[in-house]
C-alpha cells in the first residue's frame, strides 16, 4: 500500500553512506512487510538495495546469506551433493504463508528481523546453526546465533539503527541428516508449529522448535533420545507460557502438536533412511473427484 508519510528514500551504497539513524527511519529490504501495513510513524526509508551485498557466498567454512538475499534466490541455491540438509531450504520456503510471487521480493533478513514465531527463515537458519552479523548503529559489529537473535513474538536483539548484515551457516550443518515437520490450521497456511531435527556426524541429535513457540527453542542430545526423554526435555524447556497464542493456533494445541511432531522427527531420524516419510500426514490437500 502507499506509505503516504514517506518523504524521502535514501540509497546508500556503502556502510559509510548509511545515514544517521533518526526516529521515523526504516530499513527497506524487500519491503513486503513495510508495504503491507500502514506505517504512519515513518518518514524515511533507507533502501538497502544499492549496498549490493552478494546474495549468497559459499566460503571455506560457511554459507553466507546476505540479509538482502531474497527467498527466491535462497530457494534457487543448488548446493553440492553432500549438503544433504538442503531440502530444508525448499521446505521452509514452502512454509511461507506468502506465495512464490512474494518470495521474489521478500528477503531472508527481513523475515528474520520481523521475528514472527512462524518466520520460516528463522526456522531454517536457526536449525542450521546460523549466526547473525549485526552492524551496530555505533559502527561496531556483533555476532549472535539466530536462535538467540529472536527474543519473542516480533522481538529481537536489534536496537534502533542496528542493521542485520548477514547470516552465516556452517557448512557442517548443511551436511547433516535432517527431518522437517510442519502443521497449520489450514492446508497451506501459516505454520502453527515448525520443527526441524538433525543428526550430527558424531551421533548427536538436535531439535529446533519454531512456529509454536514465541521464540526458537533448540534442544541438543548426545544421541537420539528415547521418546519419553525427548518429551520430558520439551516439557522442561518449553513452559506453557512460551507457546504462542494467536488466531493461527491455540497454545495448548500448539504444545501437543509440537510434542507429536517432535516424536515423528525422532522416529524418522532413528529409523533407517528407507523409512523417511513425507513431511506431512498422508492425506494431502482436498479430494478430487
Amino acid at each position, binding site marked *: *500500500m*502507499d*506509505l*503516504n*508519510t*514517506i*518523504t*524521502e*528514500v535514501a540509497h546508500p551504497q556503502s556502510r559509510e553512506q548509511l545515514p544517521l539513524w533518526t526516529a521515523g527511519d526504516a530499513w*527497506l529490504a*524487500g*519491503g*513486503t512487510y513495510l*508495504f*503491507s*501495513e500502514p506505517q*504512519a510513524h*515513518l518518514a524515511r*526509508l533507507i*533502501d538497502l*538495495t544499492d549496498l549490493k551485498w552478494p546474495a549468497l557466498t559459499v566460503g571455506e567454512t560457511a554459507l553466507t546469506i546476505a540479509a538482502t538475499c531474497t527467498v527466491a534466490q535462497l530457494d534457487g541455491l543448488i548446493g553440492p551433493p553432500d549438503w544433504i540438509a538442503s531440502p530444508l531450504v525448499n521446505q521452509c520456503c*514452502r512454509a511461507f*504463508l*506468502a*506465495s*512464490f*510471487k*512474494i518470495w*521474489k*521480493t521478500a528477503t531472508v533478513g527481513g523475515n528474520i528481523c520481523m521475528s514472527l514465531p512462524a518466520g520460516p527463515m528463522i526456522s531454517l537458519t536457526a536449525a542450521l546453526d546460523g549466526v547473525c552479523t549485526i552492524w551496530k548503529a555505533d559502527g561496531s559489529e556483533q555476532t549472535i546465533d539466530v536462535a538467540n537473535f529472536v527474543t519473542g513474538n516480533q522481538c529481537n536483539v536489534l536496537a534502533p539503527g542496528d542493521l542485520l548484515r548477514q547470516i552465516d551457516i556452517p557448512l557442517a550443518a548443511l551436511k547433516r541428516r535432517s527431518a522437517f515437520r510442519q*502443521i497449520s*490450521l*489450514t*492446508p*497451506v*497456511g*501459516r505454520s*502453527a508449529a515448525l520443527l526441524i531435527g538433525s543428526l550430527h556426524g558424531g551421533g548427536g541429535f538436535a531439535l529446533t522448535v519454531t512456529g509454536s513457540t514465541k521464540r526458537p527453542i533448540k534442544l541438543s542430545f548426545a544421541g537420539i533420545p528415547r521418546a519419553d526423554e525427548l518429551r520430558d526435555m520439551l516439557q522442561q524447556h518449553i513452559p506453557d507460557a512460551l507457546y504462542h497464542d*494467536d*488466531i*493461527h*493456533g*491455540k497454545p*495448548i*494445541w*500448539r504444545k*501437543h*502438536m509440537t*510434542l*507429536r511432531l517432535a*516424536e515423528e522427527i525422532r522416529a524418522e531420524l532413528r529409523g533407517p533412511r528407507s523409512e523417511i516419510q513425507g513431511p506431512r*500426514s*498422508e*492425506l494431502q*490437500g*482436498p*479430494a*478430487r*473427484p
Partner: protein
Amino acid sequence: MTYQINGIEFSETPQAGQCLRTFLRQLGHFGVKKGCDAGDCGACTVLIDGEPVHSCLIPAFRADDHAITTIEGLAPAGGAHPMQQAFLDAQAFQCGFCTAGMILTCASLNQAQRQDLGSALKGNICRCTGYRAIEDALQGKTNVEQAEAGTAFGRSLPAPAGPQVVRGSERYTFDVAMEGTLHLKMLRSPHPHARIIAIDKRAALAVPGVQTVLTHEDAPQRLFSTARHEKQWMDPDDTRVLDPVVRFIGQKVAAVIAETEAAAEEGCRRLKVDYEILPAVVDPLQAIAPGAPVIHTDKTAEHRVSNAPRNIVAETHGEFGDVARALASAAVTYQGTFTTQRVQHAALETHGGLAWVDASGILNVRSSTQVPFLTRRALADIFDLAPDKVRVFCERVGGGFGGKQEMFVEDILALAALKTGRPVKFELTREEQFISTSTRHPMQVTVKAGADKDGRLTALQLDVLSNTGAYGNHAGPVLFHAVGECISVYNCPNKKVDAVAAYTNTVPSGAFRGYGLPQTIFAVEAAIDELARQLGIDPFDMRRRNVVKPGDPMLAPPGSEYHDVHYGSYGLDQCLDLVERAMAEPGPKLELSPDWLTGDGIALTMIDTVPPAGHFADCTIALRGDGGFELTVGTAEFGNGTATVHRQIAATALATTVDRINLRQSDTANGGHDTGAYGSAGTFVAGRATMAAAENLARDLIALGAQIAGADPASCALKDEAVICGRQILSFAELARSARGNGRTLSASGSSEGSPRSVAFNVQGFRIALNKATGEIRILRSVHAADAGKVANPMQCRGQVEGGVAQSLGATLYEEMVIDDGGRVTNPKFRDYHLPSFADIPRTEVYFADTTDSIGPMGAKSMSESPYNPVAAALGNAIANATGIRFTSVPFKPDRLWPALHEKFGLKG
C-alpha cells in the same frame, strides 16, 4: 524516472512511498486491482521483467528501468493471450475482480507449479468461484456453449462482459478518473461507546490540500438504516450520516476531504476529538440482561426498535401446538446449543464510490452497490432532494454477497459532493471493510427436538440470540428469516420459536448470503441427525419421513402474515436421491493411518425464492434499427451472472441470439424501479420482468409483421430473428425500418412484483476424514444437489453452487472475525482472516433436480444464496458421524476440535 509499461515508456516520478499498484492505476492501468492492499490476495499481480509480483508491495521507484506488464498488455491490442482465452472458454470468473491477477499468475506458472496448484495459487484469492472453473481454465477445458436464435435459455452461454473482464478493461467502481476529484478519508472511533464532546478541526484544515472537514454538525440529523429494503419499515431508523454518539470501534466520526489521499489521511491524524467515554457492552447475552449499558437511549418503538432499554432491536415469539408436552412424550429427544461466529463477506472490491453534482444540478453517485435504486431513495430522503435530482448507478461490482445491500458510503459521499461542489472519491481500505461495514450475524441457537419411535418429528423448538452489533440494519429480517424455512421445511405438529436480536457495541451485522438460515440450519440439521442416530434411522430416510411435500403447509411460528409462498415446483425428493446416490458411488481407495476417522454427513435447506413484502423490477426492451435489441434492467451484476441470464431470457422470447441484445443495467437514470440484487432476486424477479417485456415486444413485432403481411397475427410467429407470416419472412431489421417509417419505435416494458413466490431446495453431502490426533479435516467427497427449477444457464448455476459451497466452507472451517473484550476487531486483514484459497476447497459434484417452476421465469428458480446454507450443518454431521462427538460451534478449526478429540481418544501428542 523511466518506466516501460506494456511496451510504452513513461517518464514519471512516483511519490517516495508510493507502491507500484497505485502508480500504475494513476497512469490509467485500471486492470491492476486493489483487493487487500497488503500482498495477500493477488488481485494487483503484474509482471516485472516477465516475473509475477504483487504490485501493492513493490515500492514504485524500484520498477524504474524495468519492463512492467499489466493485464492490458499481456496480449497485443485486440488479441488474447492463451491464458485469457482459456479463462473465457472455461468462464473461470464470476465477479471478475480477481481475474486479471489470476490470469497473470496462471500464465507465469511452470510445469512443476501447474502440478501443485494449491501452493502455486495460494497468493490469489477468488471469493466467487470455488476455484473449479479456474482449474478448468488451466486444464484447457471449454465450458461455454453456443446457442442458435431462440434457444438461449437453458444453455451454458458465457457472460457478456467476459472479454473485457479477461483483458482488464471492464470498469469496476474505482476504474474511472475524473478531473479535479477530491479524496475522502474517515476518522473512525477508537472507542466502543462514547459521546463526541468537541472536534477541533484547525490543525486538520491547516494541512496543505485539505479542503474541508465534515462532522456531525455538518450532517443531516435524519435517522435512517444503512440496510436497504423495498419497505423502509423492515429496519429501524437508528443511524445518522455522522452521529454525535459513537457505538462501535470503527464508526465514522469525521470526514476529511482533500486534494490527495495523503493529505486527507494527514488531516485525519490531526483532528482532535474530545470524547466522553460511555459504558459499553460487547456480549449479546450481557447486553440484554437487566442493568446493561443502553446503546440506543434515544430510540423507541417509533424508530422501530423493539425494546431499546434492553438493547433488543427485534424479536419474534410463537408456538404451534404444545412443544413442552410433545418433548415430554417423545420417544427420543435432543437438545443442543450451537454458535456461529462473525464472518465477513470479503468481496474483493471494497465498498466505496464517487459522487459529484453535474451541470444540471443532479447529484450523481457511482458506487459499489447491489441496490442503486433503494440507495437513491435513501439519499433523496436524507438530503431532501427530489428523486430525479439524484442518480445512483454502478457498472460492474467486484463481489457483494449481501454486503452491498447497504448504504455505507453513499451518504457521506453525497454530503461531501454537495458541500464541496467537486467530485469526491471514497474507497474503503481492507481494514475499514472489516471494522466498519457489516458482517454475518453471529447467533447462538438452542434447538430442542423430539420424534416418535417411527422417526416422525413431534417437537421442534428454536431459541435464538442474534448479535446485530451497534446498529440494527437487517437485524429483524435476518432474524425472522433465520427462524423460517429451517423449520417450515419439516412437518411437525409442535413448533416453538423465541428469537431476539441484540444490540452490542460492536461492528454491525447485516445482510449476508443465506440471510440467517445458515446459522439456524447448523442447529436444526444437527438435531435431525441426532434424533435419527438415536432411532437407528438413516439420515436420508429420517429427512424423507419429515420434509414437507407439495400440499403440506410450510409453517414456522408465530406464522407469517404473507401467504404468497407456493410449491411452484418441488425437487427436494430428487435432491435427496441425487446426493444419496452420489455418496454411495465408490470413491478412490485411500490408505489411511489409524489416526484418521472417516464419516459422512448431509444437510438440507429450503428457501423462499424471493424476500417477503414485495420485490419489484421494471424492465424495458426496444428494437434497434439493425434488428437487435436494447434491454434495460435495474438489477446489478456483481458476479451473480444475471447479466447473462437476462440476455438469455430476452433472446429466447424474441427468437434471437444473445449477442443481438445489448444490456444496460443498474442505473437509476435509465428510469423505472428495481428493488435490487438481493434475496436471490436477480433471475426470479428481475428475470420475470425481462421475460414480460420481451414477450410484450414479441407480440408487438408479430402484430406489426402481420399487419405488413396482411395476415392473421395468430398465424404468425417469431423465428430466427424474423416474423414468419406464412411464406413471408419479415426480419427484425425490416420491421424496425417499417416502424421508423411510420414514426414509431418498437419498445415494450415488463414488471414483476416478486409475488407469488416459490421455494427452492438444496442438499449437501460430505465425506470427510478427521485426524483424531491433530484435529485436521480433509474433505474426501463433496456432493451438492440443487433444485433451481429449469436451469437458465447450467454452467453459471453450477458456478453459483460451487462458489456458495466454497464460501460456506470458509465460514465452516477457517474464517472468523475475533472481537476482543473491548469491542475491537483484532484480525482486520486477510493474513489473519483466512479466506479459502485453491488448496482449501475440494471439487464439489453438482447435480440439478429436474423440475420446472410454474412461477419463475421460463421455469427457473433462484440459486445464489441457498447453496451456502447447508454446508456447515452437513460438515458438522460428518464430523459427528466420524468421531461420535457433536461439535456445536464453527469454525471447525483443528485447535478447537482437538481438546474434545484428545479427551475422547486419549492420544498422546
